């Protein structure tokens, strides 16, 4: 049961091959037996998961099931869950039990899904290796000496290790796609504004976006159908109509034009990873797509642009953690100033503090124009590069990451080396575009991800291309040896 896709579980529940209680029990047992190896979950509430599963079984028996009724889903611990701790991987929120559900959680509940648990993550979603969590690092199920990627590393590892059939993640600079690539699963970052951000702890508000992480494009489509859509309570959520993301999955790729940015295939790309990507592109070509050489000339500026904009927005968003209304508070503050500064010293980890300081600096008097405004201007140039490409091609393809997963500890003392991990993913967030990572082979038994980037609101096409690719390949059906049985 644990290696079935969400689509198969939906079908099996409807055909009464098994109950939601059985499915949920199966995954809860797997988490209890195996997650000590991976550390992919921060919180699991068996009692409420099984109660939700029981209610789902009643609905299924009554014939009034919704699209995901009875399906257990793991959620990144960044989404507020009513009555269930939401830590965001931080000591600051270690004691935070939200009094409300994020819109995304409400939508999953509306469509009948069961909350399986809350997954580990880099603190406040800041990181590319999941080593920045207050709850300890997550291990890559393919090889527990390797990082799973980040910041949605717990979600990626849980799905890869078959501890959850699917999960949610968030992606501010690659945090869905990079861990999906490192763990050999399929992950989609939708267009900015496609999924509500209400109740999702804010990191960088003009970049943050939630998306599905699962084994296949078909499962991602199923989850996105639940997640996507206008939320009146999120003023940046989009009014664009939502389509059925499964409707076009099987469309032919005949005539599809795929742009290959030469900047994504340069010196920085690991050779063996590049070879996997080239083989994957050949498969798409064999299905009738045309490969077109394109250029994103401002690519080398994406890291500096991102590392001004994201910290600037983070420093503003994280100013709310003051030890007064919720979350951590230092013991015996001598005065209000001591309360603020010591609460924040104790509550935040090193990387979060670094980004708050960089952001505060970039926004401070005298530096705003040179840093923040400048970065916003370059951000427009980066977006324009993509708009120019999409005049010639339908989607853009390349590697998700410069190479496969690296060893735990290899980059944790060098922030800049860690930032370089996201060189192919950051621009997608700066431009607000949808992007996907699809399993595309292995280098030394480490998964490799193919990245697909689409026009704004063209998620259905990315899912279509990924699905067709997955019909012809079986990379997405391979599971780590430890997770099989």
């Amino acid at each position, binding site marked *: 049961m644990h290696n079935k896709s969400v689509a198969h579980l939906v079908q099996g529940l409807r055909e009464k091959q098994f109950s939601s209680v059985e499915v949920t029990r199966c995954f809860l047992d797997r988490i209890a037996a195996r997650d000590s190896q991976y550390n992919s979950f921060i919180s699991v509430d068996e009692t409420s998961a099984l109660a939700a599963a029981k209610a789902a079984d009643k609905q299924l028996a009554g014939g009034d099931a919704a699209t995901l009724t009875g399906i257990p889903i793991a959620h990144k611990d960044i989404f507020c869950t009513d009555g269930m701790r939401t830590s965001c991987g931080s000591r600051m929120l270690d004691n935070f039990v939200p009094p409300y559900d994020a819109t995304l959680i409400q939508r999953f509940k509306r469509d009948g899904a069961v909350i399986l648990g809350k997954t580990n993550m880099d603190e406040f979603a800041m990181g590319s290796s999941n080593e920045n969590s207050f709850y300890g690092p997550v291990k890559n199920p393919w090889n527990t000496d390797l990082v799973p990627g980040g910041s949605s590393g717990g979600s990626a590892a849980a799905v890869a290790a078959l501890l959850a059939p699917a999960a949610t993640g968030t992606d501010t600079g690659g945090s869905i796609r990079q861990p999906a690539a490192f763990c050999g699963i399929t992950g989609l970052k939708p*267009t*900015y504004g496609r999924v509500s951000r209400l109740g999702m702890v804010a990191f960088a508000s003009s970049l943050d976006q939630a998306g599905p992480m699962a084994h296949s494009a078909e499962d991602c489509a199923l989850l996105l159908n639940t997640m996507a859509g206008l939320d009146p309570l999120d003023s940046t959520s989009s009014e664009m109509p939502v389509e059925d993301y499964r409707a076009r999955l099987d469309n032919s790729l005949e005539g599809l034009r795929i742009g290959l940015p030469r900047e994504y295939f340069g010196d920085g790309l690991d050779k063996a990873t590049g070879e996997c990507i080239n083989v994957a592109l050949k498969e798409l070509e064999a299905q009738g797509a045309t490969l077109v050489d394109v250029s994103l000339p401002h690519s080398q500026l994406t890291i500096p642009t991102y590392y001004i904009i994201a910290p600037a927005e983070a420093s503003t968003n994280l100013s709310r953690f003051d030890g007064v209304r*919720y979350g951590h508070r230092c013991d015996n503050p001598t005065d209000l100033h001591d309360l603020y500064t010591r609460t*924040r*010293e104790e509550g935040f980890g090193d990387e979060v503090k670094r980004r708050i300081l960089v952001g505060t*600096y970039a926004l401070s008097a005298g530096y705003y124009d*040179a840093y923040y405004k400048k970065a916003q201007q*370059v951000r*427009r140039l980066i977006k324009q590069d993509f708009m120019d490409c999409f005049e010639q091609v339908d989607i853009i393809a390349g590697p998700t990451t410069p190479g496969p997963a690296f060893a735990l500890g290899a980059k944790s003392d060098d922030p800049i080396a860690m930032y370089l991990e996201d060189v192919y993913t950051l621009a997608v967030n700066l431009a607000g575009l949808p992007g996907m990572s699809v399993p595309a082979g292995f280098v030394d038994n480490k998964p490799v991800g193919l990245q697909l980037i689409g026009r704004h609101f063209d998620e259905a096409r990315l899912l279509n291309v990924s699905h067709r690719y997955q019909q012809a390949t079986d990379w997405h059906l391979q599971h780590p040896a430890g997770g099989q049985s």
Partner: protein
Amino acid sequence: MVVNMSIEQDEIEKIAELARIHISGEQIGQVTQRITEILQMVDQLQAVDTRDIEPMANPLDATQRLRTDEVTESDRREAFQAIAPAVEDGLYLVPKVID
């Protein structure tokens, strides 16, 4: 404008004060070093010609959607105060600010 890329320790202390984060004496040196490296990395942007380029705050250039000014939320003060570190009589408690 000229940006000074080598940031001094006392400047980091000033920024930390603005950000309301206490940094201990033994850590300030390393924090300064790391922040300096990051600022040197982002310094590449200074070379880009951005004359006449409109800054982009929202990737879709969207503007804030407004709603009618109506009360739509119920009063949930008790639920919100139940998760606060210190409250009394419906008020959030902080150390004494004025004598």
